[in-house]
């Protein structure tokens, strides 16, 4: 009984989260994008922050913190979205870009994918949406979204060669930014206008940019640490710089060699 109620609550919470996420896409296609952005961002933050170990797909084990359940039941949306149909269902439109500017040209990503097309193997494999340990051909480990995602969040299980949005619109691998932007709206907007991401070739004219997945591994988005390029050489004839601890430390650290055994304060 208790188990059932928890499961029901989890499903409610997830639907709310997805519904709000859908509104975000919608809001961005509106004319007053900035304002809608702000509103949608606040809602998403509100709805998603308390989630714990929620796993997709719905129907498997769902653990939802009571706080989220309470929030989802108690709090009404903080703003009225004019794009939501009267029956409460979000309309079937996707974010296609900002009204001021066309989307930037994206460097094709598909040629860099080692196993593309995915259907080469998957046409022989049955569709299996169950979370499990995958065959070694895949990215090992999914470290994105704090356990909220499984493959079918972004990949289309029935057409492995494409991705799909939360609403189910197919997006090819060269336009992964449309997928990422469903959650990372602020980043996507920055990337769209040039405040995030890497531009190639020229500073002028229409931009050519790397897609999100060119730099970020979508299954493990943060950059890895690595060795830096060598430090500047010391000019011929000069001694090497003293270690920074000597230069930057407080006076009492610089002169620790003057310390007397047993503590200086006792000997005064």
């Amino acid at each position, binding site marked *: 009984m208790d188990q059932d109620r928890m499961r029901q609550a989890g499903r409610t919470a997830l639907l709310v989260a997805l519904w709000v996420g859908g509104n975000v896409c919608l809001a961005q296609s509106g004319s007053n994008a*900035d304002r809608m952005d*702000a509103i949608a961002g606040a809602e998403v933050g509100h709805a998603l922050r308390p989630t714990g170990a929620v796993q997709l797909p719905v129907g498997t084990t769902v653990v939802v913190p009571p706080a989220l359940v309470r929030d989802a039941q108690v709090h009404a949306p903080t703003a009225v979205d004019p794009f939501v149909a009267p029956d409460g269902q979000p309309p079937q439109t996707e974010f296609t870009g900002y009204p001021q*500017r066309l989307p930037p040209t994206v460097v094709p990503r598909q040629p860099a994918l080692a196993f593309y097309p995915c259907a080469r193997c998957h046409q022989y494999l049955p569709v299996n949406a169950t979370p499990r340990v995958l065959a070694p051909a895949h990215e090992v480990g999914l470290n994105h979204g704090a356990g909220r995602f499984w493959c079918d969040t972004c990949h289309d299980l029935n057409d492995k060669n494409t991705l799909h949005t939360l609403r189910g619109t197919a997006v090819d691998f060269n336009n992964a930014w449309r997928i990422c932007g469903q959650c990372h709206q*602020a*980043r996507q907007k*920055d990337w769209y*206008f*040039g*405040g*995030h*991401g*890497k*531009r*190639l*070739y*020229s*500073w*002028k*004219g229409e*931009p050519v940019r*790397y897609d999100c997945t060119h*730099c970020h591994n979508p299954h493990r988005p943060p*950059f890895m*640490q*690595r*060795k*830096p*390029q*060598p*430090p*500047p*050489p*010391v*000019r*011929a004839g000069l001694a090497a*710089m003293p270690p*920074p601890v000597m*230069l*930057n430390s407080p006076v009492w650290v610089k002169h620790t060699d003057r310390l007397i055994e047993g503590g200086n304060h006792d000997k005064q």
Partner: protein
Amino acid sequence: MTSNESEPVAVEPGKADDDLANAARRLFMQRVGSAGVVGVASVASAAAATAATAAAVGLAKPAWGGATLRDAMGDLFQQHYQRMSDEEMQAALARIERKAKRKFGIDIHCEDTKPMPGTYFGYALNISKCRGYRECVAGCVRENNQGRDSQVQYIRVLEMDNGDHDLNHSEHYFDPETVPVEGKWYLPVQCQQCDNPPCVKACPVGATWLDPDGIVVIDYNWCIGCRMCMSACPYWARHFNWTEPQIPADQVNPITNYLGNRPRMKGVVEKCHFCTQRTRKGRQPACQEACPTGARVFGNLLDPNSEIRYILEHKTVFRLKEELGTEPKFWYFTDEARARP
């Protein structure tokens, strides 16, 4: 290239065919010149050795800095960049190419790239994205023919503790196994291309100035090496060539610009020039191209649709030491959006 060397510049018209005479005179100048440097007593030995071998055994630099007397005189009497006629500029560029050929044994191309009309360049750097890889430094050194041992590097990546913005506490010799180091952040500093540049005011001979596209450039031939600009610059952006810049011949970038990355000589000051040889032709600066994280954004401040204008209008930005009134055209920003009114 022999044909290039013997080809007369504008100062000596009418001797184009006199290759033999030219070659003989050059040889004479080299030998007598090296004798002049090592002393009169060694005239006999110097006559046996060419200037190149004299340099190789470390006796002295070849006379005229390794150039012919004609080139040395041409350098000596070369006018200020802004006062050179087209013919004089062509002669100066040819001299630069000949000198590089003698020094490195390779053919470089040097030109006088003019500013593009309607551009005023600015730079923005995302400190949320900089991770201290120093790829920009490596790209800059390669692109701009900086001496590999002279500690002339246009970009200094400063490492600072989180929460600390005191540049006195920064460290730019950091070399850990992996970056970014936990608890540190990174601030690359290069020439800020001030719109009110103190270095230009400090130069006693007018060897540096603000070009029409907003880049502070240097005429290396006009620089007297007094280093007043270095003491005037609050960003440590200017560097003095204490020694002859040493560049492996196979690493010299042969595409050069007079006010940009042409090989420099000992005793002159140099600094970041926003890669004039690239940006004035529409390419990105080398540091932006090398940056693996996309932290660097370069663009035209006059273009309202440019990325840099988007950043200045939508991001929280700051400029280094803005209170000095130098009006840097180099902004630092973070991922955070500017608070909406």
